[in-house]
């Protein structure tokens, strides 16, 4: 890919992600408000919050080094933008991806969590350290079933080619195309999709998996010392993640987005809104659980289920 093409794609993907994320955030707040019998904010509220934060003073604790503390939110933002670019690009143009881009995206999407942990522990605040430890454990918790179901999708998309024999596809575009053809036929992928919904619920830090922030217990944990512009960037990153994570699992399990015709666009939006609403409903109807409960839930309940999903999709693949 030449540079002249990369920069517009990158800019477009990042802007699209930010916009989609802001709207999703608004939907989240609006639906939450409805459930709680409130009116809810106007559509521009998430953006207004971020802009207002930019006008506020930035405070760095004495105990923090400064560089790492301020740099970490930026790194998180940067990695989400790159992950979003790869995702959008392989959705718009399935043949253009590279081998193994699934792994690249998966890894890039763990970096925001790492930056939250490092930024939080750079602040020197013990509450932030508690939150950081929980974030890391939560990452381990959801990563295991998430990996298993992604492998299920990879093997579900495996085509038995007569010339090369087996070709496990490692590429977002191929997986996406494979599922457009026969998603419903593969029970493994359906189970995988449901499991991955739970995983991104945790990845986005939504209730019941918000023990990392736990406002009323550890006062937003890793974010406790952040203010002003760094906090604005953190909010921006989380808004982008709210758009990227549903897009990621839709790409892997549900044929992804396409913009070839009006019907396709509607279908893509429909899928996205459905995933989003499920996330919002789960978040509004559950209490926060403890981190050890989360670990048990992901490792002892979802992981065996994910292995079942993997076995099912392999049985089809082989």
């Amino acid at each position, binding site marked *: 890919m030449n540079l002249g093409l990369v920069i517009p794609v990158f800019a477009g993907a990042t802007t699209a992600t930010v916009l989609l994320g802001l709207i999703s955030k608004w939907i989240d707040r609006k639906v939450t408000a409805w459930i709680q019998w409130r009116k809810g904010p106007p559509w521009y509220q998430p953006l207004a919050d971020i802009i207002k934060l930019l006008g506020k003073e930035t405070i760095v604790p004495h105990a923090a080094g400064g560089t790492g503390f301020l740099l970490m939110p930026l790194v998180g933002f940067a990695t989400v933008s790159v992950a979003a670019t790869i995702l959008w690009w392989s959705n718009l143009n399935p043949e253009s991806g590279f081998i193994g881009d699934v792994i690249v995206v998966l890894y890039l999407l763990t970096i925001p969590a790492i930056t939250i942990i490092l930024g939080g522990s750079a602040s020197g605040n013990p509450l932030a350290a508690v939150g950081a430890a929980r974030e890391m454990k939560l990452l*381990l918790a959801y990563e295991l079933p998430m990996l298993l179901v992604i492998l299920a999708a990879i093997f579900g998309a495996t085509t038995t080619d007569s010339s090369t024999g087996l070709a496990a596809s490692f590429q977002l575009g191929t997986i996406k195309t494979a599922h457009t053809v026969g998603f419903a036929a593969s029970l493994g992928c359906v189970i995988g999709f449901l499991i991955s919904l739970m995983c991104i619920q945790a990845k986005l830090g939504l209730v019941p998996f918000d023990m990392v922030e736990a406002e009323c217990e550890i006062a937003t944990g890793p974010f406790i010392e952040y203010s002003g512009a760094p906090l604005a960037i953190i909010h921006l990153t989380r808004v982008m993640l709210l758009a990227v994570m549903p897009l990621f699992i839709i790409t892997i399990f549900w044929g992804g987005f396409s913009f070839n015709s009006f019907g396709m666009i509607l279908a893509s939006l429909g899928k996205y809104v459905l995933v989003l609403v499920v996330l919002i409903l789960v978040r509004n109807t559950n209490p926060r659980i403890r981190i050890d409960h989360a670990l048990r839930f992901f490792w002892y309940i979802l992981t065996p289920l994910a292995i079942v999903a993997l076995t099912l999709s392999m049985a089809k693949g082989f």
Partner: protein
Amino acid sequence: MDDLQMIWVLIVPALAGLLTFLCPRRAAWLVNLITVLTTGWLLFACSSLLKHLGQNWQWNWMELAGINLSIDLFATHFGVIVALLIALFGFLLALYCVAFTPQNQNRDLSKHHSYILWTLAAALGAALTDNLIFMLICWEITTLMLYLLINLGGSSARAGAAKTFAILGLSDCAMLLAILLFMFVLPGGSASMSSMKIAITSPFSLQGVCYLLLLVAALAKAGAMPFHTWIPAAAEGAPCDVMAFLPASLDKLLGIYLLARISLQFFVLTNSLKVLLMVIGAVTIVGAVMMAMVQHDLKKLLSFHAISQVGYMVLGIGTGSLIGIAGAVFHMVNHAMYKSCLFLVAGSVQKQTGTTELDKLGGLAKVMPLSFFACVVSALAISGVPPLNGFTSKWLVYQAVLEIPSRLAPFLVLAAVFGSALTLASFIKVIHSVFLGSQPDSVTIKQPSESSQWMTTPMLVLAAACILFGIFPAWPLENMVGPAFDTMKIAGMDQVIENLWNPALASFLLLVALAIGVLIYVFGRGFNFRRANLYIGGEKITPEAAHYSGTGFYSTVRSLPGIKSVYKDAERDSYDIYHIGGRIGGSIVQVLRNCQTGVLSLYLSWLVLGLVIILICLIGLGQPN
């Protein structure tokens, strides 16, 4: 090296080692000077060897009962690359040691440096020789030197040193047996490495046994499970620089070099052996990293990672596919870089604060920014975070494993990918406990500062190499991994490079996005910050209470049902081959001891029984057939 014979590469460090050994105790500067000059020259000599590939040097010493004892050096491309890396690490370590005197101060300095130089000579010999017997001798010398070097750590290091020597020594015996089988039993076998090509029909055939014996030697040296327990034992007492030099880099290079050559060149493996290798790799990755997560001591934690990472290399070689081998060899190079960097960081922390206990450390990032930087880069690299070097090599391994036609494939990939997540988790703990968080009293009293430039330079060089190899992986793949392919006569390296992901582009985009972020900061006056005290929920708490060490980060994981009992067993050394071996030996001794009752009539009846057996044998043999 036109006018220079290859043998000088071995002779010079050996002689220099002798020289430093004889240096007077007071002349520490002379010892350092000799070491730095020698290793610098070695680096130069090894790089000039690159231009003279295929060069050989032979000296037949004697012929003994059919064994031809000869020093037979042969500059294969793979061997020279390994030698170059060995020399590079030797040089960086020599620089580091100028400021990092071993724990017992100057008294052991000359010993320490001469052991290091002799290790270098032996390791170079092992990498450059074509003769299996000479390789074994060099191999054994590095083991011996490692034992002596660990012992320099003082009385706390003795047990670890003994364990190391026991495990490595036994595995060297396995290698000796294999070599004897090679030379006398196997048809077409010889001591020459380049001419070897043997097909294994089944793992239980003679060829299979021969391979397995060599495999034991290679795996024990590299520290893969189940022969891994010497590394954490050694880490308990050994100085950090020794850990960085031998178990982290040199032993890995040699072990994986041998593993690659025996698995890909000497033998043609059966599928069951490949699966065996891959399973060993996957188990090593997850098992060792789970142990690493719950360690309280920095050195010990790092040593478990030195085991875990071998798993990726074994896994890659086990796939037997082009991409897998490329990934494995590349991971060997990468691992040596970031793991020795991490051990050097540990040494620098130890020198400044006097401890490697995670509980007693914290908040060092402010006073040791360079060490912190090196630590973060290499920690992210070892966890396989893109766009650093560890990611590319692991990614090649994942890809290779996904493509194997076996139902095990997804589970092996899972072990490898999830192993990386666990690695990341344990390094988050390290970074939090050592460099971030708040400083506990034990640190503030000592008032640490950044280590001297002699120590930070090698760390920064290695960290920079991690970044560069990550962003431009095509260069090391072509120039370091490609030669391995040439030597082992595997074609297709270009294909691997062609299908590589494009980390340069991704890094460029990351930088662009970072710049956008910086712009937002400027716009929001993020850089004109005000300093304030910590906000801890409105409470006023003492600095001691505010210190939250990372050692308890994963106690939740540890106390999960199922995992708990495994940890308990592991900590009681139930899975330690050294202890299992010890127990078996102990029970045999117990049987013999039970025979020694001291009752005369019992001894007499044993005697009679023995005589009867001899008699029966004699009669049986005396019969004409």
